[in-house]
């Protein structure tokens, strides 16, 4: 009797917990909306335009690369869309379309695909792209000039510029509560502190990002800012201000936590995050740059492979 039954044969294990890259991307996108929607509300259609343009162009760049390198189409995993979204969150609503498209080109093509695609990028693609753009067209990202034509019902000055130029006194008018609620100017999705925190907590609870990185990043900010503040309260603003301005919150929850460029072991994660936070404050307070988050994250991305060498010994190896 010929046996024509075709059974599925594959290797163990025969169970999977059901996680996938696409569900991870979907959830991070969802969480980012908590910060992006208030941003769009604040800046209107221009912001919506930047966000959609960024996501769409990121996807198209990835499709193009798939096509050119004859690899299977990978946009379905949502990673390109996610890069586009996170990139847009850092942009001012007034960014011209060509800058958005150039930015996503740097993020998807240069920072991700050239290094070998998903999981092989040593730097956070959105951060690298943003840094390149800032170095090339700095005036586009001068938030004070960029958002001049808007009228807000709050102080429309980029808070970090004030503290940098005029010291801690100048930022006293900013009530922390207002900063938390996003009453400050900045990137589309980086000012609404409360949205970023809620989104971040959601992602932590669902296990899509690692709490070790977020918390130690914030701890790094708080401790370093506190040290400066105690040394010279006239000149250096306190930790609360630093936590809620610039890219701190988005950095802690959405940028530093990118999988490929961050460590996987417990102690390295703590060092990685803490270093990022502390470097941010160092750059803000002593460096020449206004915000330090992006550079700090690139630096910790760079040391990540070294950090991940601190790890428990595999069993059966030595005592």
């Amino acid at each position: 009797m010929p046996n024509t039954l075709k059974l599925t044969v594959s290797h163990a294990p025969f169970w999977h917990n059901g996680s996938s890259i696409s569900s991870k991307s979907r959830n991070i996108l969802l969480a980012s909306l908590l910060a992006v929607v208030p941003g769009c509300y604040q800046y209107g259609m221009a912001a919506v335009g930047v966000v959609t343009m960024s996501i769409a162009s990121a996807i198209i760049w990835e499709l193009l690369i798939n096509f050119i390198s004859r690899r299977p189409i990978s946009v379905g995993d949502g990673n390109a869309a996610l890069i586009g979204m996170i990139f847009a969150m850092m942009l001012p609503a007034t960014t011209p379309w060509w800058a958005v498209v150039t930015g996503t080109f740097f993020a998807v093509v240069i920072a991700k695909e050239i290094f070998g695609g998903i999981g092989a990028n040593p730097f956070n693609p959105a951060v690298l792209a943003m840094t390149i753009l800032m170095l090339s067209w700095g005036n586009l990202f001068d938030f004070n000039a960029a958002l001049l034509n808007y009228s807000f019902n709050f102080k429309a000055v980029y808070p970090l510029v004030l503290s940098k130029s005029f010291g801690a006194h100048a930022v006293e008018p900013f009530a922390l509560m207002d900063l938390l609620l996003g009453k400050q100017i900045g990137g589309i999705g980086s000012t609404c502190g409360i949205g970023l925190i809620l989104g971040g907590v959601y992602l932590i609870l669902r296990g899509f990002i690692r709490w070790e990185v977020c918390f130690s990043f914030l701890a790094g900010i708080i401790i370093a800012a506190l040290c400066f503040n105690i040394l010279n309260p006239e000149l250096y603003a306190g930790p609360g201000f630093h936590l809620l301005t610039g890219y701190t919150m988005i950095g802690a929850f959405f940028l530093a936590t990118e999988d490929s460029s961050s460590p996987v072991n417990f102690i390295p994660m703590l060092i990685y995050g803490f270093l990022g936070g502390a470097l941010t404050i160092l750059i803000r307070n002593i460096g020449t740059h206004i915000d330090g988050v992006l550079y700090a994250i690139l630096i910790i991305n760079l040391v990540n492979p070294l950090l991940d060498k601190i790890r428990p010994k595999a069993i059966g190896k030595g005592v």
Partner: protein
Amino acid sequence: MIKRSFFGLVKPKLQYEIIDDAQPEPVNINASEKIMLYIDQPYENKANSLLKIGDQVKNGQKIEVVKDADAYMLSSKSGQISNISSFVGFMEKKLTAVTIDIDDQANQLLDDSFKDVYKTPSMENAKDLLSGLPGKPDFDVFFHPDKPIKSIVVLGVDGDLLTTTNQWFIKNGIISVKTGIDLLRKITGIHDIILIVPQHLAQVAGSAGATVKTVDSEYPAAHPQLIIRHILADKNLGGNDIASNSGIAFFSAEAVSAIGAAYKTGQIPLDKIVTFISKDGNKQLVSVPIGTPLQDILSQLNESLNDGDRVIFGGPMTGVAVYSPDFPVMPDTDAIIIQDKSQVVERADVACINCGECVRVCPANIQINQLIRFLEAGQYEEAADQYDLFSCIECGFCSFVCESRIPVFQHIKLAKHTLESMNAAEENNA
């Protein structure tokens, strides 16, 4: 299937199955026409072989391919050999497949080579006649004077999820397990016998006449290497964790119970207890003669197979998928799982995203996110030298959680196998 919990922050947990309090007696299944035995010995030199088509074999008879080989099987039925062929098993293993057309139930002939010796139990006659018992006892470990065995561990726990085979022997057959333990003590002269059971069976196990230790209910705590590491940490193991070098011999509760029964009655028990899990997730224990084809079990339990379904011999984490319903029950087949086509999760061809889920669950502390890059590139030697390939205890947990759905475990097995066969080839050439 156990899914990732909604709150993924907590480490994923997989619990071993706990045997039901009201576990019904195993269902008896019989072989209908033939049995098939896979002997761990290549079938190369046909002229030299002891086996001939048409040979009469008896129930309990030792079936070996060449004289005095270590590997043999015991025929669970009497009948006539109708086919002998070479068979390539899992990971290129060369086996000999022997098919026996069985005599009807009323005319079963019993082999009596064991009858002659069972009154004088010894290590030698156990190795010679009982290695094919259900539970696959390994007596060879006692024959290496350079690696003396100091303790015996009896596993009253099951190695994989869903399975309750060994627990059943503790729960419902502790007396025969005790008989077996006493016998092992007698023939090996080893007094240190440790019985490992899950917490809920600790009390029953107390009467077995061995030191009882319990293991955690979380997979893979009952893995022999982890037992050595965590539960037997007080035994001086000289720094090396590999089970065969550690001075510890492992036996399953089923094997011990079978050894006891064999020496007590002179009759070799050859019915294997298997945890059978049907498509709808129903679990039941069946008692089936070793060598019985899966098809016989399926038809007697009214389970049907369709194209695309998956049949797993062993548990969901470490078992082996078979491609034909003719595949027979082996001495170590503790579970058989039938998965419907719809339950089969596709593996993907995506790169590792470095999420680290695997690293956080690996009981061997392997940096799998690094290791996998070398394995995918085929750089097995680097993988072994720098990324701890050989520390892997083969639990499969990494593949279970992988977000990219990479078949990590398969890569690991393949790498180990490739390196091992390369080493073997080098030794042969030297």
